[in-house]
């Protein structure tokens, strides 16, 4: 049996799954000030009268790092960045202990200016004196040549507890995002470590000794050990859990929309043939941009508890929440009240809901039923409008080859999957309004925990081969090997697959879940100088796609 636990904004759900389906689920109130007891009480209640020896796997999705970012409780850490020519690295400052240093590497990975070791020594002493324990080191184009980062780390080693290097974060180019991501990993490391060590200890005391896996933003899992190097990857795993929970109900060989309608926000995501769509570069939320692999989600500030108002004769919904719906004792009318009025929902205090919607109806010069209908319809319209905007955006993403321009994949979803508290009510309305096949994911409140439980290990490798310089590298994996002039596309793919498999196993993947390999990117160029060919550049990215582990999907139907 397997366990999935998802810490949500209001409630935390834990489920126990066997190959017969959901055996047990529990719900505890999330205490953001003490996530440890929340997680622990979830496990305690779930494991009551269950033999821990039957558990094969446990996956946890928490809001630990997300909260640390939002509440700005991240630990002060040091950053050393070497930029070389380009935009002033001062723009990417992460805090007081941020030091741009000399040294430069160009786009081909060639050293253009050396590291000044004396300068690094001085900075190291200064930071150590200031009580810094963790440091991130990022050099521009380190994914092409990490030697400067490695050299700097060697100098720093004796001063600090742990050093995070930019080239380990991602194979993608993007210096500012690499700085932000490396900084995040360093800044949440000790929080993440102490939290999960405590969780692990408590679970061991309960007799649960299976390896713990942690859900990442890309809807995949990693082992607790692997997470210690990249704790930042656990950020925004909540939306990922719910999207993974929708996968069992997604159509095959078709595109689908996933809507997770919560109290205050609705998360929107997409599935292509049961595989979630990923962000092309990494998580971004407003000004915060990173290289953390993530599902492509966006949220709209609208949900069942959004506040309803009338401004200048126009109905507005959200983005704030002033409490639960009036039907459940809240202060102001909400979309949930409209659903109660319309008898779509048969729980809650109908009188209170009606009183709330009446204030809206009066201002709009409508009957109570008309106003409720308008609220309900407007909610659906706002959510779907945002969804269609996202689809347009995805389909108008720039491409860089004639082939992709002419043959590029166009997302055209034919099904909508709705999760969250009010899912069943919304699903019917959306289908009526838009004539798109819409399904409320069954047992929706625990779908997130199920999604976490069933998520398989994901990872990605980026390879770069340059036959002129005679080398194939995947610096993210600390891999570099000499190659001959005859190194081919097939050789590259073989190397990539070997590395991917190795990385997956090290991150805790089961050998039977290593088949969903996908080549995300492949490019090949002739290097020509003075009109004669000098070699070839190959680039590829290969990933283990996010998806569900085998053997459990069908039991959910």
């Amino acid at each position, binding site marked *: 049996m397997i366990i999935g636990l998802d810490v949500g904004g209001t409630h935390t759900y834990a489920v126990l799954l066997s190959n017969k389906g959901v055996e047990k689920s529990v719900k505890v109130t999330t205490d953001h000030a003490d996530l440890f007891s929340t997680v622990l009480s979830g496990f305690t209640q779930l494991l009551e009268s269950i033999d821990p020896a039957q558990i094969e796997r446990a996956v946890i999705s928490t809001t630990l790092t997300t909260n640390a970012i939002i509440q700005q409780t991240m630990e002060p850490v040091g950053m050393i960045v070497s*930029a*070389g*020519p*380009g*935009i*002033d690295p001062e*723009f*990417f400052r992460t805090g007081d202990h941020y030091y741009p240093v000399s040294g*430069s590497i*160009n*786009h*081909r990975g060639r050293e*253009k*200016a050396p590291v000044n070791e004396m300068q690094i020594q001085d900075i190291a002493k200064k930071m150590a004196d200031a009580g810094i324990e963790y440091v991130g080191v990022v050099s*521009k*184009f380190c994914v092409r040549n990490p030697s400067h980062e490695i050299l700097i780390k060697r100098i720093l080693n004796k001063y600090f507890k742990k050093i995070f290097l930019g080239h380990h974060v991602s194979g993608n*180019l*993007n*210096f*500012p*995002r690499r700085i932000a991501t490396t900084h995040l990993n360093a800044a949440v490391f000790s929080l993440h470590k102490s939290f999960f060590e405590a969780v692990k200890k408590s679970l061991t005391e309960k007799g649960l000794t299976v390896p713990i896996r942690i859900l990442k933003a890309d809807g995949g899992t990693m082992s607790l050990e692997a997470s210690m190097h990249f704790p930042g990857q656990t950020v925004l795993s909540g939306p990922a859990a719910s999207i993974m929970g929708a996968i069992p109900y997604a159509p095959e060989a078709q595109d689908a929309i996933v809507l997770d309608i919560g109290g205050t926000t609705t998360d929107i995501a997409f599935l292509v043939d049961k595989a979630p769509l990923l962000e092309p570069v990494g998580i*971004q939320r407003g*000004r915060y*941009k990173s290289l953390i692999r993530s599902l492509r989600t966006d949220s709209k500030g609208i949900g069942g508890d959004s506040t309803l108002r009338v401004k200048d004769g126009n109905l507005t919904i959200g983005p704030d929440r002033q409490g639960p719906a009036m039907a459940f004792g809240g202060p102001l009318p909400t979309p949930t009240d409209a659903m109660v009025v319309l008898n779509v929902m048969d729980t809650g205090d109908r009188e209170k809901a009606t009183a709330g919607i009446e204030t809206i109806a009066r201002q709009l010069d409508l009957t109570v039923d008309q106003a409720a209908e308008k609220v309900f319809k407007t909610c659906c319209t706002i959510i779907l409008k945002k969804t269609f905007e996202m689809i347009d955006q995805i389909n*108008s*993403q*720039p*491409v*860089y*080859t*004639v*082939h992709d*321009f*002419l043959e590029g994949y166009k997302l055209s979803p034919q099904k909508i999957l709705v999760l969250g508290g009010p899912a069943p009510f919304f699903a019917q309305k959306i289908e009526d309004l838009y004539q798109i096949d819409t399904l409320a994911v069954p047992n929706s409140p625990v779908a997130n925990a199920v999604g976490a439980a069933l998520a398989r290990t994901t990872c990605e490798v980026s390879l770069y081969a340059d036959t002129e310089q005679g080398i194939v590298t995947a610096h993210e994996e600390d891999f570099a090997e000499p190659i001959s002039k005859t190194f081919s596309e097939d050789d590259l793919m073989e190397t990539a697959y070997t590395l991917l498999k190795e990385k997956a196993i090290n991150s805790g993947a089961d050998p039977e879940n290593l088949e969903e390999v996908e080549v995300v990117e492949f*490019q090949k*160029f*002739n*290097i*020509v100088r*003075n*009109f*004669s*060919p000098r070699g070839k*550049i190959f680039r590829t990215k290969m990933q283990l796609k996010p998806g569900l582990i085998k053997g459990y999907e069908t039991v959910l139907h």
Partner: protein
Amino acid sequence: MLKALHKTGLVFFPAFDWAIDPTHPEREERLLYTQDQVTEEGVFDIPGIIEYKPMLATAEDIRRAQFCVPDEAAITTESHLISAGGAKVIADAVMNKEVQNGFALIRPPGHHSMRVSHGGRGFCHINIEAIMVEYIRSRYGVKRIAIVDTDCHHGDGTDNIFWHDPDVLFISLHQDGRTMFPGTGFPGELGGPNARGSNLNIPLPPGTSTEGYLYVINHCVLPVLNEFKPDLVINSAGQDNHYTDPLTNMNFCAQGYAELTTLLKPDIAVLEGGYAIEGALPYVNLGIILAMAGIDYTGVVEPDYNPEKLRQSVSITDKIKKTTAQINKYWSQRFQMREDAGNPGEIQIRHKEIFYDTDNIFERQKERVRICKDCGGCFEIDPRPPRGFISRVSTFPSTPISFAIIPACIEKGYEFFDSAPKNKYHHVFLMDRPKGNYHIK
């Protein structure tokens, strides 16, 4: 916080799967290192910099600017159409005020492609800027447009397309034609009789460095623009004046290009040539993008940049000052030159030889233009590629591309077209710009 002072639109289309041939300078790899640099710098994440997806230009778009022989499909590939379409997308973004300015980093380039195009010249098949300019004029009704071509080669295609057009000011700065393809672009080439002075060609001696280049911008280009008062400034942003370019002999640098962009303030920049793909393009393109967006570019310096080594000699400085003075004199006399060019209604004849280096075609053209004081007149081109190369012969009566079209010129344009004997030519085309019609006989 890093933020664009001016909202800037970018179309980045490196056509990673298209080349003239595998070892040609215009090949897949050309913008690879630029893409790496721009991506690593996080340029597309900067608030106020918006990346657009290009679209496909259509035959109709090309027909506003050029005659393709035998037709558009025969001399273009999808890559050309995406390149021209990319410039159109940027034009739309700027004209609709979604952005304040825009830069189309596209390939293949276009500025050697002329009014009549039989194929590839100087790596260009269709003229991207001209197609974009005519699109802007017909879609948005913009009247006066200035094109400043800062590619190291004379922008002879654009020069040719706007030769008779007094409403388009074309200025080309380039390495002296006696030392460089296409061998034209001398100060005396000033535009047709109806538009004299609206084409300015400024040859620069080999070895011109940043100092000399910016001297011309400050002492000639900017004052001329100031007087011409264009509604829109377009920069044909070739990057082959760079000191490391393998095809040219100039000493310009990334900082210089960024400063040039800051001075010129183009509404739209379109990438042209530039073949120092590793040592120059990544830095020059980054410099131009930052300059357009109003972001500090002082850190964008080539790793091997040494201004001492690139300093220009005194004799080069003197030559540049002389050329600048000469151009300024021509500019100040432009209305008188047009007055002296001929009498209204008169037909003047010009002979021209054109060599297509890419497709190896040699062509002789006879051009007849009607003198007009109120519009750009109308003209007919009779291009004759010699026997053995290409068997098609065509005539091209066309009304000029001007908004002040007088009926006599339109009438004459149709007369050119109607009177072309069909048995003598394989193709006869007419471009009626005021009506937007394109006829094939």
